[in-house]
Protein backbone atom coordinates (compact mmCIF):
# COMPACT_ATOMS: atom_id res chain seq x y z
CA UNK A 1 0.00 0.00 0.00
CA UNK A 2 1.30 3.43 -0.90
CA UNK A 3 2.28 5.66 1.97
CA UNK A 4 0.01 8.59 2.80
CA UNK A 5 1.25 11.97 1.59
CA UNK A 6 1.98 15.18 3.46
CA UNK A 7 2.14 18.65 1.97
CA UNK A 8 3.36 21.84 3.64
CA UNK A 9 3.30 25.53 2.78
CA UNK A 10 4.52 28.79 4.27
CA UNK A 11 2.14 31.68 3.58
CA UNK A 12 2.61 34.98 5.46
CA UNK A 13 5.02 33.38 7.91
CA UNK A 14 8.76 33.44 8.56
CA UNK A 15 9.52 29.77 7.84
CA UNK A 16 10.13 29.36 11.56
CA UNK A 17 7.44 26.67 11.78
CA UNK A 18 9.09 24.83 8.89
CA UNK A 19 12.33 24.98 10.86
CA UNK A 20 10.34 23.37 13.68
CA UNK A 21 9.32 20.54 11.32
CA UNK A 22 13.05 19.96 10.67
CA UNK A 23 13.60 20.27 14.42
CA UNK A 24 12.06 16.83 14.98
CA UNK A 25 15.70 15.84 14.29
CA UNK A 26 16.42 12.19 13.53
CA UNK A 27 12.72 11.39 13.85
CA UNK A 28 12.42 12.81 10.34
CA UNK A 29 13.73 9.39 9.21
CA UNK A 30 10.84 7.76 11.04
CA UNK A 31 8.49 10.27 9.43
CA UNK A 32 9.77 9.29 5.98
CA UNK A 33 8.87 5.68 6.81
CA UNK A 34 5.33 6.80 7.60
CA UNK A 35 4.73 9.29 4.78
CA UNK A 36 5.84 10.70 1.45
CA UNK A 37 6.23 14.45 1.07
CA UNK A 38 4.17 16.03 -1.70
CA UNK A 39 4.11 19.79 -2.46
CA UNK A 40 6.41 21.33 0.12
CA UNK A 41 9.41 23.66 0.43
CA UNK A 42 11.18 20.72 2.09
CA UNK A 43 11.48 18.82 -1.23
CA UNK A 44 10.80 21.88 -3.43
CA UNK A 45 7.80 20.28 -5.20
CA UNK A 46 5.94 23.27 -6.68
CA UNK A 47 2.68 21.50 -7.55
CA UNK A 48 0.53 18.77 -6.03
CA UNK A 49 1.06 15.33 -7.57
CA UNK A 50 -2.12 13.88 -6.08
CA UNK A 51 -4.34 13.67 -3.03
CA UNK A 52 -2.66 14.26 0.36
CA UNK A 53 -3.64 12.96 3.78
CA UNK A 54 -2.36 15.99 5.71
CA UNK A 55 -1.55 19.58 4.82
CA UNK A 56 0.45 21.73 7.23
CA UNK A 57 -0.04 25.48 6.81
CA UNK A 58 2.32 28.04 8.28
CA UNK A 59 1.39 31.73 8.13
CA UNK A 60 -1.83 33.64 7.52
CA UNK A 61 -3.17 35.15 4.30
CA UNK A 62 -1.63 38.55 3.49
CA UNK A 63 -2.00 38.54 -0.31
CA UNK A 64 -4.03 36.90 -3.09
CA UNK A 65 -1.34 34.29 -3.73
CA UNK A 66 -1.60 33.12 -0.09
CA UNK A 67 -5.36 32.66 -0.57
CA UNK A 68 -4.82 30.77 -3.84
CA UNK A 69 -2.27 28.41 -2.23
CA UNK A 70 -4.45 27.89 0.83
CA UNK A 71 -7.51 27.01 -1.27
CA UNK A 72 -5.37 24.66 -3.36
CA UNK A 73 -4.28 22.93 -0.15
CA UNK A 74 -7.86 22.64 1.05
CA UNK A 75 -8.78 21.06 -2.29
CA UNK A 76 -5.96 18.49 -2.17
CA UNK A 77 -5.70 17.63 1.55
CA UNK A 78 -8.00 15.46 3.64
CA UNK A 79 -6.88 17.15 6.86
CA UNK A 80 -5.63 20.72 6.99
CA UNK A 81 -3.70 21.94 10.04
CA UNK A 82 -2.87 25.53 10.99
CA UNK A 83 0.66 25.38 12.39
CA UNK A 84 1.86 28.30 14.48
CA UNK A 85 0.43 31.63 15.62
CA UNK A 86 0.61 33.38 12.21
CA UNK A 87 -1.75 30.80 10.67
CA UNK A 88 -4.01 31.00 13.73
CA UNK A 89 -4.19 34.74 14.42
CA UNK A 90 -2.04 36.50 11.81
CA UNK A 91 0.50 37.50 14.46
CA UNK A 92 3.33 39.89 13.37
CA UNK A 93 2.05 40.38 9.78
CA UNK A 94 -1.37 41.18 11.30
CA UNK A 95 0.07 44.20 13.15
CA UNK A 96 -0.93 46.12 10.02
CA UNK A 97 -4.55 45.09 10.40
CA UNK A 98 -5.75 48.28 12.05
CA UNK A 99 -3.84 50.54 9.64
CA UNK A 100 -5.35 51.16 6.16
CA UNK A 101 -3.41 49.32 3.41
CA UNK A 102 -2.76 52.58 1.53
CA UNK A 103 -1.01 54.05 4.58
CA UNK A 104 1.11 50.90 4.99
CA UNK A 105 2.26 51.00 1.35
CA UNK A 106 2.97 54.75 1.49
CA UNK A 107 5.02 54.30 4.66
CA UNK A 108 6.97 51.41 3.14
CA UNK A 109 7.64 52.92 -0.29
CA UNK A 110 7.27 56.71 -0.02
CA UNK A 111 7.37 58.19 3.47
CA UNK A 112 9.48 55.86 5.61
CA UNK A 113 12.62 57.52 7.10
CA UNK A 114 15.07 55.25 5.23
CA UNK A 115 13.20 55.03 1.89
CA UNK A 116 15.14 55.87 -1.30
CA UNK A 117 12.61 55.94 -4.14
CA UNK A 118 13.25 58.84 -6.56
CA UNK A 119 10.46 57.70 -8.93
CA UNK A 120 7.96 57.87 -6.08
CA UNK A 121 6.21 54.71 -7.23
CA UNK A 122 4.57 51.97 -5.24
CA UNK A 123 5.35 48.57 -6.87
CA UNK A 124 2.38 47.62 -9.04
CA UNK A 125 3.73 45.07 -11.55
CA UNK A 126 0.94 42.67 -12.47
CA UNK A 127 3.23 39.75 -11.61
CA UNK A 128 3.13 40.82 -7.97
CA UNK A 129 0.32 39.30 -5.91
CA UNK A 130 -2.03 41.98 -4.61
CA UNK A 131 -1.96 42.64 -0.88
CA UNK A 132 -5.23 41.95 0.90
CA UNK A 133 -6.92 44.72 2.90
CA UNK A 134 -5.70 42.97 6.04
CA UNK A 135 -4.04 39.73 7.11
CA UNK A 136 -6.52 36.88 7.60
CA UNK A 137 -6.08 33.83 9.83
CA UNK A 138 -6.31 30.66 7.72
CA UNK A 139 -9.54 29.49 9.35
CA UNK A 140 -11.26 32.72 8.22
CA UNK A 141 -10.49 31.75 4.59
CA UNK A 142 -10.99 27.96 4.45
CA UNK A 143 -12.09 25.24 6.87
CA UNK A 144 -9.17 24.25 9.10
CA UNK A 145 -9.38 20.92 10.93
CA UNK A 146 -6.74 21.29 13.66
CA UNK A 147 -4.65 24.01 15.28
CA UNK A 148 -1.11 23.69 16.64
CA UNK A 149 -0.22 26.99 18.34
CA UNK A 150 3.21 28.36 19.17
CA UNK A 151 5.69 30.83 17.79
CA UNK A 152 7.05 28.72 16.36
CA UNK A 153 4.87 25.68 17.02
CA UNK A 154 7.44 23.45 18.70
CA UNK A 155 8.79 20.31 17.07
CA UNK A 156 7.31 18.05 19.74
CA UNK A 157 3.70 19.21 19.23
CA UNK A 158 4.05 18.83 15.43
CA UNK A 159 5.55 15.35 15.82
CA UNK A 160 2.91 14.18 18.30
CA UNK A 161 0.09 15.50 16.10
CA UNK A 162 1.43 13.85 12.93
CA UNK A 163 2.03 10.51 14.62
CA UNK A 164 -1.44 10.53 16.20
CA UNK A 165 -3.12 11.33 12.89
CA UNK A 166 -1.06 8.87 10.85
CA UNK A 167 -1.52 6.00 13.30
CA UNK A 168 -5.20 6.79 13.91
CA UNK A 169 -4.74 7.36 17.64
CA UNK A 170 -6.25 10.14 19.76
CA UNK A 171 -4.00 13.16 20.19
CA UNK A 172 -3.21 13.88 23.82
CA UNK A 173 -1.14 16.98 24.34
CA UNK A 174 0.43 17.34 27.79
CA UNK A 175 -0.09 20.75 29.47
CA UNK A 176 3.53 21.90 29.02
CA UNK A 177 3.30 21.39 25.28
CA UNK A 178 0.56 23.95 24.60
CA UNK A 179 2.27 27.35 24.30
CA UNK A 180 1.34 30.47 22.39
CA UNK A 181 4.93 31.73 22.27
Amino acid at each position, binding site marked *: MAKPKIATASLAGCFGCHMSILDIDERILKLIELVDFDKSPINDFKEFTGRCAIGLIEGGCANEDNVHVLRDFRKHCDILISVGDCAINGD*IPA*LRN*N*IPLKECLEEAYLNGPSVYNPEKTIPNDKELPLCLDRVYPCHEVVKIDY*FLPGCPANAEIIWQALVALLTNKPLELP*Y*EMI*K*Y*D
Partner: protein
Amino acid sequence: MSDQITFTIDGVEVKAKPGQTIMQAADEAGIYIPRLCYLPELTAHGSCRVCTVIVNGKPQTACTQPVAEGMIVENDTPELLEHRRNLVDMLFVEGNHLCMFCERSGNCELQAMAYRLGILAPKYPYFYPDKPLDSTHKDIFLELNRCILCGRCVNASADIDGKGVFGFVGRSIDKKIAVNSDKNLGDTNMAVTDKAASVCPVGSINKKGTAFKIPYGQRLYDQKPIGSDIENKK
Protein backbone atom coordinates in the same frame (compact mmCIF):
# COMPACT_ATOMS: atom_id res chain seq x y z
CA MET B 1 -26.67 31.05 64.37
CA SER B 2 -24.10 28.40 63.68
CA ASP B 3 -20.56 29.57 62.99
CA GLN B 4 -20.05 26.98 60.31
CA ILE B 5 -21.82 26.45 57.01
CA THR B 6 -21.72 23.21 55.08
CA PHE B 7 -22.38 23.02 51.37
CA THR B 8 -21.15 20.99 48.40
CA ILE B 9 -19.07 21.78 45.30
CA ASP B 10 -19.39 19.06 42.64
CA GLY B 11 -20.60 16.69 45.37
CA VAL B 12 -17.64 17.36 47.67
CA GLU B 13 -18.60 18.64 51.12
CA VAL B 14 -17.08 22.03 51.93
CA LYS B 15 -17.09 23.85 55.27
CA ALA B 16 -17.22 27.63 55.33
CA LYS B 17 -17.65 30.55 57.69
CA PRO B 18 -20.78 32.73 57.45
CA GLY B 19 -20.17 35.75 55.21
CA GLN B 20 -17.60 33.99 53.06
CA THR B 21 -18.12 33.83 49.31
CA ILE B 22 -18.16 30.54 47.41
CA MET B 23 -14.76 31.52 45.97
CA GLN B 24 -13.18 32.09 49.42
CA ALA B 25 -14.55 28.82 50.78
CA ALA B 26 -13.45 26.90 47.69
CA ASP B 27 -9.93 28.38 47.82
CA GLU B 28 -9.59 27.33 51.47
CA ALA B 29 -10.86 23.85 50.64
CA GLY B 30 -8.35 23.42 47.80
CA ILE B 31 -10.95 23.56 45.04
CA TYR B 32 -9.98 25.83 42.15
CA ILE B 33 -12.73 27.85 40.53
CA PRO B 34 -11.30 29.52 37.39
CA ARG B 35 -11.25 33.34 37.61
CA LEU B 36 -9.71 36.33 35.87
CA CYS B 37 -10.84 39.53 37.62
CA TYR B 38 -10.92 38.25 41.22
CA LEU B 39 -7.98 38.94 43.56
CA PRO B 40 -8.41 38.16 47.28
CA GLU B 41 -7.10 41.57 48.41
CA LEU B 42 -9.48 43.56 46.17
CA THR B 43 -13.24 44.07 46.33
CA ALA B 44 -14.86 41.35 44.21
CA HIS B 45 -17.20 42.66 41.55
CA GLY B 46 -17.94 39.66 39.34
CA SER B 47 -17.12 41.37 36.07
CA CYS B 48 -15.28 38.70 34.07
CA ARG B 49 -17.89 35.95 34.66
CA VAL B 50 -15.24 33.24 34.32
CA CYS B 51 -15.93 32.10 37.89
CA THR B 52 -19.60 31.50 37.09
CA VAL B 53 -20.81 28.37 38.88
CA ILE B 54 -24.27 26.82 39.07
CA VAL B 55 -25.78 27.41 42.52
CA ASN B 56 -28.93 25.37 43.20
CA GLY B 57 -29.53 25.31 39.45
CA LYS B 58 -28.87 29.01 38.76
CA PRO B 59 -25.70 30.66 37.41
CA GLN B 60 -23.89 32.91 39.94
CA THR B 61 -20.41 34.38 40.12
CA ALA B 62 -18.51 32.49 42.81
CA CYS B 63 -16.49 35.59 43.79
CA THR B 64 -19.57 37.56 44.86
CA GLN B 65 -22.09 34.92 45.96
CA PRO B 66 -22.08 34.28 49.74
CA VAL B 67 -22.25 30.69 50.93
CA ALA B 68 -25.46 29.34 52.44
CA GLU B 69 -26.20 26.15 54.36
CA GLY B 70 -26.83 23.18 52.11
CA MET B 71 -26.31 24.97 48.79
CA ILE B 72 -25.38 22.75 45.88
CA VAL B 73 -22.63 24.23 43.69
CA GLU B 74 -21.53 22.87 40.32
CA ASN B 75 -18.10 24.01 39.15
CA ASP B 76 -16.28 21.45 37.01
CA THR B 77 -18.94 20.48 34.46
CA PRO B 78 -18.78 20.23 30.64
CA GLU B 79 -21.30 23.09 30.33
CA LEU B 80 -19.30 25.46 32.54
CA LEU B 81 -16.06 24.47 30.79
CA GLU B 82 -17.69 25.46 27.49
CA HIS B 83 -18.99 28.71 29.01
CA ARG B 84 -15.50 29.60 30.31
CA ARG B 85 -13.89 28.72 26.99
CA ASN B 86 -16.34 30.99 25.19
CA LEU B 87 -15.55 33.89 27.54
CA VAL B 88 -11.80 33.46 27.16
CA ASP B 89 -12.19 33.06 23.37
CA MET B 90 -14.08 36.36 23.25
CA LEU B 91 -11.42 38.13 25.31
CA PHE B 92 -8.76 36.89 22.89
CA VAL B 93 -10.53 38.09 19.72
CA GLU B 94 -11.63 41.44 21.18
CA GLY B 95 -8.09 42.61 21.87
CA ASN B 96 -4.73 42.21 20.18
CA HIS B 97 -3.27 39.38 22.23
CA LEU B 98 -0.02 38.57 20.45
CA CYS B 99 1.65 36.32 23.00
CA MET B 100 4.79 35.77 20.99
CA PHE B 101 6.27 39.18 21.77
CA CYS B 102 4.36 40.02 24.94
CA GLU B 103 6.43 40.70 28.06
CA ARG B 104 3.85 38.90 30.21
CA SER B 105 3.80 35.67 28.20
CA GLY B 106 4.27 32.70 30.51
CA ASN B 107 3.17 34.80 33.49
CA CYS B 108 -0.14 35.95 31.99
CA GLU B 109 -3.37 34.85 33.65
CA LEU B 110 -5.43 35.11 30.44
CA GLN B 111 -2.95 32.95 28.53
CA ALA B 112 -2.68 30.52 31.44
CA MET B 113 -6.48 30.27 31.62
CA ALA B 114 -6.62 29.47 27.90
CA TYR B 115 -3.95 26.76 28.43
CA ARG B 116 -5.85 25.32 31.38
CA LEU B 117 -9.10 25.28 29.42
CA GLY B 118 -7.30 23.56 26.51
CA ILE B 119 -7.89 26.30 23.93
CA LEU B 120 -5.75 25.84 20.81
CA ALA B 121 -7.40 28.64 18.81
CA PRO B 122 -10.36 30.97 19.47
CA LYS B 123 -13.52 30.04 17.61
CA TYR B 124 -14.66 33.63 16.91
CA PRO B 125 -13.44 36.05 14.22
CA TYR B 126 -10.69 38.43 15.30
CA PHE B 127 -11.53 42.13 15.74
CA TYR B 128 -7.97 43.55 15.38
CA PRO B 129 -9.03 46.75 17.19
CA ASP B 130 -6.99 49.94 17.07
CA LYS B 131 -5.86 50.57 20.66
CA PRO B 132 -3.22 52.94 22.01
CA LEU B 133 0.03 52.32 23.88
CA ASP B 134 0.87 54.87 26.58
CA SER B 135 4.55 54.89 27.53
CA THR B 136 4.69 58.42 28.92
CA HIS B 137 5.31 57.32 32.53
CA LYS B 138 8.97 56.87 33.40
CA ASP B 139 8.52 53.52 35.20
CA ILE B 140 5.29 52.04 33.85
CA PHE B 141 3.66 51.59 30.46
CA LEU B 142 0.01 51.04 29.68
CA GLU B 143 -0.71 48.76 26.69
CA LEU B 144 -4.45 48.82 26.01
CA ASN B 145 -4.20 46.27 23.17
CA ARG B 146 -3.97 43.61 25.86
CA CYS B 147 -6.50 44.98 28.36
CA ILE B 148 -9.35 42.63 29.32
CA LEU B 149 -11.23 45.24 31.40
CA CYS B 150 -11.02 43.19 34.59
CA GLY B 151 -11.02 46.37 36.68
CA ARG B 152 -8.27 45.26 39.07
CA CYS B 153 -6.19 48.41 38.44
CA VAL B 154 -9.28 50.60 38.97
CA ASN B 155 -10.04 48.99 42.33
CA ALA B 156 -6.45 48.78 43.51
CA SER B 157 -5.72 52.42 42.70
CA ALA B 158 -8.90 53.69 44.35
CA ASP B 159 -9.18 51.40 47.38
CA ILE B 160 -5.57 50.51 48.25
CA ASP B 161 -3.41 53.31 46.79
CA GLY B 162 -6.08 55.96 47.49
CA LYS B 163 -5.27 57.66 44.16
CA GLY B 164 -7.94 56.75 41.62
CA VAL B 165 -5.49 56.79 38.72
CA PHE B 166 -7.59 54.46 36.57
CA GLY B 167 -11.26 54.46 35.63
CA PHE B 168 -13.64 53.01 33.06
CA VAL B 169 -14.99 55.22 30.28
CA GLY B 170 -17.48 54.32 27.53
CA ARG B 171 -20.01 51.54 27.33
CA SER B 172 -20.23 48.05 25.89
CA ILE B 173 -17.73 47.39 23.11
CA ASP B 174 -16.40 50.97 23.43
CA LYS B 175 -15.64 50.55 27.13
CA LYS B 176 -12.00 51.14 27.98
CA ILE B 177 -9.58 52.01 30.76
CA ALA B 178 -8.72 55.71 31.04
CA VAL B 179 -6.25 57.52 33.28
CA ASN B 180 -7.15 60.37 35.62
CA SER B 181 -5.25 63.20 33.93
CA ASP B 182 -5.70 65.62 31.03
CA LYS B 183 -3.29 63.63 28.92
CA ASN B 184 -1.43 60.44 29.72
CA LEU B 185 -0.28 58.08 32.46
CA GLY B 186 2.90 60.15 32.81
CA ASP B 187 0.81 63.10 33.99
CA THR B 188 -0.82 61.18 36.87
CA ASN B 189 0.58 60.68 40.37
CA MET B 190 0.96 56.93 39.85
CA ALA B 191 4.12 55.38 41.31
CA VAL B 192 5.73 52.08 40.37
CA THR B 193 5.32 50.94 44.00
CA ASP B 194 1.53 51.37 43.80
CA LYS B 195 -0.59 48.25 44.17
CA ALA B 196 -2.22 49.17 40.85
CA ALA B 197 1.12 48.62 39.10
CA SER B 198 1.25 44.95 40.05
CA VAL B 199 -2.31 43.62 39.82
CA CYS B 200 -2.79 43.45 36.05
CA PRO B 201 -3.50 39.83 35.05
CA VAL B 202 -2.31 40.42 31.47
CA GLY B 203 0.43 42.49 29.83
CA SER B 204 -1.49 45.78 30.01
CA ILE B 205 0.18 47.51 32.96
CA ASN B 206 3.88 46.74 32.92
CA LYS B 207 6.86 47.91 34.93
CA LYS B 208 9.59 49.10 32.59
CA GLY B 209 12.91 47.28 32.68
CA THR B 210 11.48 44.04 34.07
CA ALA B 211 10.55 42.20 30.87
CA PHE B 212 11.92 38.80 29.83
CA LYS B 213 13.86 38.32 33.09
CA ILE B 214 12.71 34.72 33.55
CA PRO B 215 13.77 32.19 30.89
CA TYR B 216 11.26 30.20 28.86
CA GLY B 217 10.38 27.05 30.77
CA GLN B 218 10.72 28.60 34.23
CA ARG B 219 7.91 31.13 34.06
CA LEU B 220 4.92 31.00 36.38
CA TYR B 221 2.62 28.93 34.18
CA ASP B 222 5.16 27.08 31.98
CA GLN B 223 4.99 23.75 33.82
CA LYS B 224 1.95 23.91 36.10
CA PRO B 225 -1.54 25.13 35.17
CA ILE B 226 -2.97 28.25 36.79
CA GLY B 227 -4.77 27.25 40.00
CA SER B 228 -2.33 24.45 40.88
CA ASP B 229 -1.29 26.34 44.02
CA ILE B 230 -4.89 26.25 45.27
CA GLU B 231 -5.47 22.63 44.26
CA ASN B 232 -2.27 21.60 46.03
CA LYS B 233 -3.76 22.75 49.36
CA LYS B 234 -6.08 19.76 49.28
